[in-house]
């Protein structure tokens, strides 16, 4: 499995290698990485998930980018050179959603992974490139669902007012619209008050429990659910089952953390191993 994205702290060039946790600190090879909202939360959540299955093989391709886009372009350029292959899952995360660059590397990504999961900037780029249906999984929240439903726009900032106004009231309409416009992946996890598992434009599962109101306010809870998802798929669960389980495990970690809207994301994801135990004991079969 490979996770790729940008980080908001210094890293020399494009960093590629095995990521691991040591005493709850994150490392890429021997380089310590700060765990903060974004791609490092996703990676850490994935590693916590894999730990439950006594697996740890996870690679990351990371570059420093503070928003000026230079790092993102470096990462796309690295991918274009073709040093990626044979992954069960490739998950793209925070990155400047450059459309031309994404189109350039997409064939390489598609041929290098069995399953492509796109969240954050990588999802924006995939939608804006009209390649949504070629992606296995998108993981939007309500605002991003409005963006996917709006066929003409290439970034959520330009979404039509009418879609933004309905984004938490009529998500089902937005799903239908996004699918009809070819702007939704085959499977999707829509993160919100209810987490929705969507297959080919139809809701196949709704996850409501446990309900932890404060999680909506906490930056990184969307990153953590995607990390758990990647870990479950990597451990051998089917995609559909992983989507449902990842939502349940993320919510359960939230419940165990007893958060307020001021809680920081690490104080939630550290409960993923316990949440895994709680959720998995109710599963009839394992993998």
């Amino acid at each position, binding site marked *: 499995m490979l996770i790729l994205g940008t980080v908001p702290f210094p890293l020399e060039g494009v960093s590629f290698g095995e990521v691991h946790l040591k005493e709850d600190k994150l490392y890429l090879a021997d380089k310590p990485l700060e765990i903060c*909202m974004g791609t490092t939360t996703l990676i850490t959540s994935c590693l916590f998930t894999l730990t439950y299955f006594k697996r740890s093989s996870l690679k990351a391709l990371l570059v420093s980018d*503070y*928003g000026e886009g230079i790092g993102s372009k470096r990462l796309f350029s690295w991918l274009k050179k073709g040093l990626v292959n044979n992954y069960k899952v490739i998950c793209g995360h925070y990155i400047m959603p450059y459309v031309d660059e994404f189109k350039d590397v997409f064939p390489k990504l598609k041929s290098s992974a069995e399953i492509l999961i796109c969240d954050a900037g990588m999802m924006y780029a995939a939608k804006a490139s009209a390649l949504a249906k070629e992606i296995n999984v998108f993981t939007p929240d309500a*605002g991003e669902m409005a963006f996917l439903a709006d066929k003409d726009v290439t970034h959520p900032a*330009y979404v039509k007012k009418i879609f933004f106004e309905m984004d938490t009231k009529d998500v089902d309409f937005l799903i239908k619209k996004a699918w009809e416009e070819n702007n939704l992946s085959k499977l999707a996890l829509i993160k919100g008050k209810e987490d929705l598992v969507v297959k080919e434009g139809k809701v196949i599962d709704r996850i409501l429990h446990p309900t932890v109101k404060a999680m909506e306010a906490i930056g990184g809870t969307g990153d953590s659910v995607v990390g758990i998802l990647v870990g479950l798929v990597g451990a051998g669960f089917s995609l559909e089952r992983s989507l449902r389980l990842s939502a349940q495990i993320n919510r359960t970690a939230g419940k165990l953390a007893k958060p307020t*809207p001021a809680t920081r994301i690490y104080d939630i994801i550290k409960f993923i191993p316990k949440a895994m135990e709680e959720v998995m004991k109710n599963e009839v079969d394992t993998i």
Partner: protein
Amino acid sequence: MFFKRFKKNPSTSDKGLILVEDVATAMAVERFLKEMGFEVKGVAPPPRLRKGCDLAVEFNLVEQMGIEKALKNTKISFFIAPLRHSEAPVDIVKTKDIDGYILVRAVNMKVVFDKKGVIVNVSGGGCPDVPYLSKNLIGKHLKDAPPVMEMGFSLCAYMLKKAIDRAMEIF
């Protein structure tokens, strides 16, 4: 076949235009932004976007905030529009009270502050400056947020700024 199918097509939907008063200014803007490291080029604006000048500067829309910031320092009068449609970034926000904290959301960006006006969380977005801005905003009072937002470049940062501006009005 596969590679042929995904062959790169020039995309216009992700591009924006900088419109200025005259050709000389457009050329100066193009040169200036290139020197700043942005990938820009001079193009003819579509009729609906003409603003007295028949040369505009095309840029990558996701870099809108960085472009605007750079141009504001030059005192040049300019107008920005997406190339494919005439919509401006959505200008409404939604607010919500969660256990005494206020969450303000501008489409894909959320900021949460407490009763004292301190930012306690930032979430959403997909552009790389979001995690960076989040790190620098959390723990700060709303009134101290504008200088931090000066470090933003992307459209996600632009939406986060809208959420913060509204939060400042509410507080």
